[in-house]
């Protein structure tokens, strides 16, 4: 099993904030679409390191990670196989992210 590691602070931005693109330049949606999804679509297990940032708001985390399921790109079970989340600075974020993934419901397509 090969791993691909993403460090949010170094590979995205040290001050992530906001939910969607129009909230700001380093939003959860931006992280999901520009960094996370391309990595998850590859063959490796993706390890997201949450350290090296100023912190995270729930809007950013829910959009970045819950959005993976809500937007229909992955199921929660798929993410259990493909995604790892680590944080030494604030380990409570790990369970928070998995809660968002578990609770997300795919949007209905009309």
């Amino acid at each position, binding site marked *: 099993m090969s791993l691909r590691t993403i460090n949010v602070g170094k590979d995205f*931005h*040290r*001050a*992530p*904030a*906001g*939910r969607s693109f*129009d*909230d*700001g330049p*380093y*939003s959860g949606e931006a992280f999901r679409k520009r960094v996370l999804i391309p990595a998850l679509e590859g063959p490796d297990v993706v390890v997201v390191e949450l350290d090296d940032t*100023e*912190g*995270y*708001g*729930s*809007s*950013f985390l*829910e959009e970045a990670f819950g959005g993976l399921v809500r937007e229909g790109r992955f199921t929660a079970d798929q993410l259990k196989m493909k995604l790892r989340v680590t944080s030494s*600075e*604030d380990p*409570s974020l790990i*369970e*928070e992210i998995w*809660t968002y993934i578990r*609770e997300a419901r795919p949007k209905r397509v009309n």
Partner: protein
Amino acid sequence: MMPDTLSLTHNREETLDVFRAIRRATRKFRALKLDFTTLHRVTPAAALVLAAELDRWRRIHKIRPVVFDADRWDPNVSRLLFDMGLFDLVEAQNLPVIRRDLEPVERFIRYRTGRGALGEEAVALREAVESCIGEGLPSRRAMYRGVTEAMTNVHKHAYIGPFVDATPIIKDAWWIGGGFAPDQHRLRVLVYDQGIGIPATLPRRYALERVTDVLRGRGWHDNDAGRIAAAMELGRTRTGNPNQGRGLPDLQLFVNAADRATLRILSRRGEYIYVEGAQPQLVEHSRPLGGTLIQWEINL
């Protein structure tokens, strides 16, 4: 003419009168001339809202409000308002000499303004706070979380309708700032917006039934204060984990991360006061604030 004290806690009515006068001048494009010579006390919260009102005037009318006789101001007030950044907003006749030798009871942190969730602005505020208190802020990540969530909430929800008295708005704008009282080791961090208020946005975010259920279940009145509390309650995760906020509940985490801290939210007529482990206090005032003010008070 300013009252002796600008404070939303100790002199709310006269403080709101000042804001109302500025807004009236903004709406009617009347000359705005301010006399601060009678002002002797001002809190960080009142100063931030004052700065936001003057900023709004300046940005809408493209001219600066005029202040008279700045050299006759109480020197403590001059120092506080200078530190807050107010002098950049106004055109002052006879700029006062800022008394650096005075050690004010409270040091104000320069306000910042912007639109959207700007993490770098939250970082700059945190750095200004740490410069003011002279040390690193232990709960810095919780502060970052609270401030950026407040910014996001402003962008998503605050400006979906006209201001309370139809004063022109700077859409999506927020103002952040704070103050530190060294003798009491008391830090205040503030976020203010000129939106329609949390009680007005609540019905647009949650079904009426859910709002009513929460209000009844918790025994809260269906007024502005009750609706702020309901908004905090409805924002929680299904797990009910107090360490997992969603949007508005993120504001509580900065309080929970500190030993002795209080969250205060003023929006329209409502006031919501949260301390970890206690039931929130709710106060319904007779007059609306205009916008929403969030204040964290941390005893370091």
